[in-house]
């Protein structure tokens, strides 16, 4: 039993990583029907930019962090929306999704050539010590990630439901035409979600990189698992990302332990297929009526 608990807790910790990355997927999907295949790279890059700023300008870490994070949100929040998404969004989901694929190559190769082909340590602002939970060891870093994933979801739910700005955003997501008639600045609202997405990517990057290391290729795995987590949880619900992430993380951990470690990747995917066939809108997703 203690063994099972240990696997479960390890799975939850990994799942929180996926969840944190998956939130952005669901967020930009809701407001602008954008599938961002560069989401993994969005999580990879802030940490690299921080280290790059430290390396290039010899800046202290906090200043490097500020520069890196600010540059990232500006370029990959607002810039991404204005330069890539805006001209393409009216042409449907696919060309934009492909464009984000090209963007992911640029980000990945840019990080490799501009920074390093090797993994680098990223400082953790949380102590790396471990504590015992139900007889299983878990690090404070992982606990922080779990807490942050929940906090971010909570804050987003509160923002969307409890603030004026948030409700405007929700209205935009649900029906842009009506929102526009009601006098909501739809464009600005969509821009806001992209900035929030970039900011979330920064949070994820800063939390994950001390464990996962800062490396140009990290986005591949994180992006794939975040995508799977978003589908499993339900693409049209932000809290779906949390549920999906945790489910995928736990399943992955248990699969590695009890099934076959060389097929561990298969288990979350089989789960994905089963969910699609049984509850296509995802575990937490709303059903959407068919549009004619």
């Amino acid at each position, binding site marked *: 039993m203690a063994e099972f608990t240990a696997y479960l807790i390890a799975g939850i910790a990994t799942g929180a990583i996926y969840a944190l990355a998956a939130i952005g997927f669901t967020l930009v999907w809701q407001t602008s029907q954008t599938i961002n295949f560069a989401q993994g790279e969005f999580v990879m890059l802030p940490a690299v930019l921080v280290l790059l700023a430290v390396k290039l300008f010899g800046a202290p870490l906090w200043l490097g962090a500020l520069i890196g994070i600010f540059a990232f949100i500006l370029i990959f929040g607002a810039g991404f929306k204005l330069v890539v998404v805006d001209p393409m969004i009216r042409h449907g989901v696919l*060309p934009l999704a492909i*464009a984000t694929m*090209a*963007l992911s190559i*640029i980000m990945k190769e840019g990080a490799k050539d501009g920074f390093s082909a090797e993994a680098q340590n990223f400082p953790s602002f949380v102590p790396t010590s471990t504590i015992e939970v139900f007889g299983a060891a878990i690090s404070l870093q992982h606990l922080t990630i779990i807490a942050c994933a929940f906090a971010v979801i909570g804050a987003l739910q509160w923002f969307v439901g409890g603030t004026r700005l948030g409700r405007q955003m929700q209205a935009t997501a649900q029906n842009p035409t009506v929102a526009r008639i009601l006098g909501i600045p739809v464009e600005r609202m969509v821009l806001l979600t992209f900035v929030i997405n970039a900011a979330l990517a920064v949070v994820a990057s800063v939390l994950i990189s001390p464990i996962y290391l800062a490396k140009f290729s990290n986005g591949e795995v994180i992006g794939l698992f975040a995508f799977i987590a978003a589908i499993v949880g339900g693409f049209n619900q932000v809290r779906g990302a949390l549920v999906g992430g945790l489910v995928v993380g736990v399943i992955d951990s248990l699969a590695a332990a009890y099934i076959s470690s060389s097929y561990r990747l298969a288990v979350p995917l089989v789960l994905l297929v089963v969910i699609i066939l049984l509850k296509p809108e995802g575990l937490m997703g709303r059903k959407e009526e068919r549009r004619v």
Partner: protein
Amino acid sequence: MSAPATTNDLSRPRGRALPGLIDGTLVTLLLGAAILWFAPVGMGRYGTYVLSLWLVMSIAVMGLNLTLGYAGLKSLAQAAFMGLGAYTTALLTTKLGVSWYAAFALSGLLTFAVGIVLGFPALRVKAHYLAFVTLAFSTLIWLILRNEQWLTGGVFGISNINRPDFFGIKLFGALEFHRFVVAVTLILAVAQWWLIRSPWGRAFTALRENPIRAASLGIDTRAYTLLAFAIGSAYAGFAGALYAPLVEFIDPSPFSLSQSFFLLLMVVAGGAGYLLGPFVGALLGVVLPEWLRFAGSLYLIIFASIVLLLLIACPQGVSGLLERGWTKLTGRRGGTR
């Protein structure tokens, strides 16, 4: 996940926008094949190999173009189907001594059948979920190719895959095999050209344009979607059957999920729903990076930037751009705009 705001913008009716293009396409195919037959003379084996690789990838992209560009289905498993074809051919020819031609046919048949088995449950739910099911399938195939070493050679792959004969003529050399690839590509391209113009092809297009209207017009949507997906997958199988003897070695890496994404990129960048789009797309995806090698370590960034800018400027891909230019040039207004 809701249905996207449909891909209508991606997919305007071709053909009618360009009068005479229907025959023009065929002429282009034949002429292109003739040029490619002679092109490698004096090009060296490297140039010849890249041209062959381009054509082989074009076949896979052609299949995906049928699935996506004509029938509007998003498949994320085209590279996995290509892998199925490549491994089937490699195993049959190296381990069992089956002739390449039989292996080629079996590869197509197998991928067609797997396409039906995979598409049936997915399309039953909603056309859109095919993307997710194929994503899972793609990774599962990759895992099997990697893990089942007794059959597939695992991470070490299968080497020394022989190239076929053509009525006693050995196709061992780069030029001979290139010409063989040109011939096979031409046959498959003309077959697709015929398919698109047939009533089946028109039904595929109707499905993409408006599935609900198509259903109300009495088209059996499920059967046609399934068929389009299966034929598209079979093309990937054919491409794989050529890829294995071309490279003479296969391992799981060219058939991974990221390669499926890359094939999707080629379809869209080349122009989804244009018969010649796949050739342009594969040219972008296969030949452009090779050509950009002079740029040194930055070549992939330049490549991706070109694709990104191209898509921003023209989401319909290169073929769409050419069509737009053509329309401007001739002063005709294109299609249903």
